[in-house]
């Protein structure tokens, strides 16, 4: 009203500026791609794509995404970004935007490659590690008058032009809590295929991912397995699902195994041949196995005695090797309460025996173990070598790329981390200054470095993995996140992008990722204004 009065007084219209300038800058957590960093500008429904055309250069492209972004996730290969948005809700006009999924690629240049309009808002998104499928699903944030919590949409990433495939996950009483994908499994009856494993409160449902399957058939071919009763007489909750392909040599059918929460049992789900009259690719015959204690994790491994399901029981401490064919458990006493396991066969195997080598770690004791499963049942030590590290391990990170295949990064509980050389059986501590640092790598490992930073600190570090030489670096503004990306100019270089964010400001410090030097940087600010002004 006052404005109109003023305008009347001035006898001429005042005009106004685009609302974008009044919109606060509220970004979501940045997402790193192979050659770009993407920051979601949620209030303006756009993606700020930062690329580095050349050394110390930063280019900003702005791409439209849907309104009210709820999730942005990169594909595992770093080539695509998936942005899920809720659109305008409730929709009152035909022009109000629908919920949508926007697919962005950055190679050779940032662009929107596909947009899918959805009928209803979805907040859940998970992308297959093999870049073949993505799943959109309902979460608790998507409450509406009537919600189908089991409704999901499958997106075949190899066929972006194909509409999302609607599937209602079969369930007796639960709703999807977690999704995982198997690799291609040889089916007892029919074509080899992948399965989507949907974990619910007390059930596991298997959804057929054969691309050629029709929508109706995909829905009706689902298999739902109710979890067994626990000691309290209630259906157990799945905590982890692992899988193994069929092994013709041992007569093993494709297998899934489910670790149950708070239960000493593990559920084996062999996929056996169905009855002769059935056209289904498999039938599930569940079996329960008591591994002697609550398992912290499970993994299928190849031992000298064949394929086994390894279950770590830190409370004993022991590892149970379950024969999926017979359900028999061989309990192996462990020297330490190992709680985590990762297969490092590809990195360390020197023979063609086909048996696995596993890395064991503990979140309570400063010891790791290397387990040669080829000696699991024959050697007195069961093939386990232990190695002292400086702290109990919170997590183990793989070093991407091919430059350091035998290296792992152990994140300590105390904030320190260790570079573990599996081959040399040596761990090198990287002592931090007491804070808990986040570690990041180049997605393809080409920079041969890892980056350690603590949010809101100005100092950060880069460690050259070959020499283990840490380089102390300084940014002139508190660090929000650090990304190591490939330069898009084609010269093959790499750029480290250190993001800074405060209120409505977004900036970046750019430095060379291969030879980082605080004295050789460039600082870019005002990135939140990208695309708002005109030349």
């Amino acid at each position, binding site marked *: 009203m006052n404005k109109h009065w003023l305008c009347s007084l001035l006898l001429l219209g005042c005009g106004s500026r685009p609302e974008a300038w009044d919109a606060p800058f509220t970004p979501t957590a940045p997402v790193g791609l192979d050659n770009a960093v993407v920051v979601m500008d949620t209030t303006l429904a756009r993606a700020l794509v930062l690329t580095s055309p050349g050394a110390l250069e930063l280019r900003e492209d702005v791409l439209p995404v849907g309104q009210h972004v709820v999730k942005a996730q990169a594909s595992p290969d770093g080539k695509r970004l998936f942005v899920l948005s809720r659109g305008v809700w409730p929709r009152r006009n035909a022009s109000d935007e629908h919920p949508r999924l926007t697919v962005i690629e950055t190679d050779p240049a940032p662009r929107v490659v596909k947009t899918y309009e959805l009928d209803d808002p979805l907040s859940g998104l998970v992308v297959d590690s093999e870049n073949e499928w993505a799943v959109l699903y309902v979460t608790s944030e998507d409450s509406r008058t009537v919600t189908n919590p089991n409704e999901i949409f499958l997106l075949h990433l190899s066929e972006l032009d194909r509409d999302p495939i609607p599937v209602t996950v079969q369930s007796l009483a639960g709703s999807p809590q977690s999704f995982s994908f198997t690799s291609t499994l040889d089916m007892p009856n029919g074509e080899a295929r992948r399965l989507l494993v949907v974990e619910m409160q007390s059930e596991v449902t298997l959804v057929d991912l054969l691309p050629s399957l029709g929508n109706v058939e995909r829905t009706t071919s689902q298999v739902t397995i109710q979890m067994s009763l626990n000691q309290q007489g209630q259906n157990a909750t799945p905590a982890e699902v692992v899988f193994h392909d069929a092994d013709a040599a041992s007569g093993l059918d494709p297998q899934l195994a489910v670790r149950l929460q708070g239960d000493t049992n593990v559920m084996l789900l062999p996929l056996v041949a169905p009855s002769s009259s059935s056209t289904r690719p498999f039938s599930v015959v569940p079996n329960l196995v008591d591994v002697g204690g609550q398992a912290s994790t499970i993994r299928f491994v190849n031992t000298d005695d064949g394929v086994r399901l390894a279950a770590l029981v830190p409370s004993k401490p022991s590892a149970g090797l379950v024969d999926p064919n017979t359900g028999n458990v061989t309990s192996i006493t462990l020297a330490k309460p190992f709680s985590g396991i990762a297969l490092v066969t590809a990195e360390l195997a020197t023979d063609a025996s086909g048996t696995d080598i596993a890395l064991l770690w503990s979140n309570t004791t400063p010891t790791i173990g290397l387990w040669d499963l080829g000696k699991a049942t024959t050697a007195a030590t069961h093939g386990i070598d232990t190695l002292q590290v400086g702290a109990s391990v919170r997590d183990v990170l793989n070093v991407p790329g091919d430059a350091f295949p035998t290296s792992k990064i152990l994140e300590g509980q105390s904030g320190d981390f260790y570079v573990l050389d599996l081959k040399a059986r040596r761990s090198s501590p990287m002592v931090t200054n007491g804070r808990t640092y986040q570690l990041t790598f180049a997605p393809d490992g080409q920079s041969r470095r890892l980056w350690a930073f603590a949010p809101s600190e100005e100092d950060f570090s880069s460690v050259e993995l070959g020499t283990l030489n840490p380089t102390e670096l300084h940014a*002139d503004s508190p660090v929000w996140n650090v990304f190591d990306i490939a330069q898009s100019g084609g010269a093959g270089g790499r750029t480290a992008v250190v993001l800074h964010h405060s209120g409505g400001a977004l900036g970046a410090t750019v430095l060379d990722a291969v030879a980082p030097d605080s004295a050789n*940087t460039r600082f870019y600010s005002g990135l939140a204004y990208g695309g708002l002004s005109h030349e």
Partner: protein
Amino acid sequence: MNDFEARSLLARSARSSAFVLSAAFSTISGYARAAPAPATSAPTEEPATNANAVSSPATPPSVTAVPSPATAPTVTAQPAHPAKHPLPDEPLHPDDGRMGTHQEHWLFGIGLRENFVAHSGFDPFSTNNVLPQFSADAGRVLFASGQLSFAALALFDYGSVKASARGLNTSLSVSRVTAAAEGRYHFWRRFYLFGRVAPGALYSGATLSDPIAGGDQHSNSWTFATDLSLGAAVEFAGEARGASNRPRGWIGLDGGYGWAQASKLAFKSSGSDANTPARLEPVELGELAVRGGFFRINGTITF
């Protein structure tokens, strides 16, 4: 700049201008009224025709035979009325009916200029398109012929706006210096229309306050600017007599289009702030062209 700020600035400018104009008006009016009666102590020997000529500018001066001094009636100048009860409308001098200083004069003026900048480069600095400015001008009518006259002026406009851009504070100050050529046509001695061309230069100083960049960043530039306007002025104070050298008061109103060359908005740090990141790249927000329609209201004193 938001509405409140714009109105405040306008109000301040208006108040300042009004105050100055009022002061000028008062000064001029008072001067006109308080001017002492010329030669009241001695009988005047001026021919009566002068007074008559002054009082009736439309009446051709009558020629009256001048009586001989011996036979001339004794004319005794009437002393002025006592100051206790002055006659307010009694002209001091009779109107000579000439354009005189109504047309040819020096001029000094101040006013308020309202610019309407529709260029997108202005958006970061203001929530609307209005750029109010204080305006001052000075000049001289150089040529007059009949009702036409030509004046040369120098004008100076200054104004600033503030806003926030996505939560960060911004400001823009614009100064314009122009030399104007103004053509006038007096419909009446106290009223004329004019057209003005005023090329000159425009200085814009933009500031962006980015905490990540260590504080304020500036983008300053000089550009070529030109105003084209049409207006009118009316004399509200001053003697009717054209020959009068006494100040006259005018109120003018003009409007037109102010064009300025576009300048790049590239914000840089001054470098003096210790918080400024090293090798800070300028923030480029495109171009700014302070151009658009405007109107100006001003008060002028002419001599």
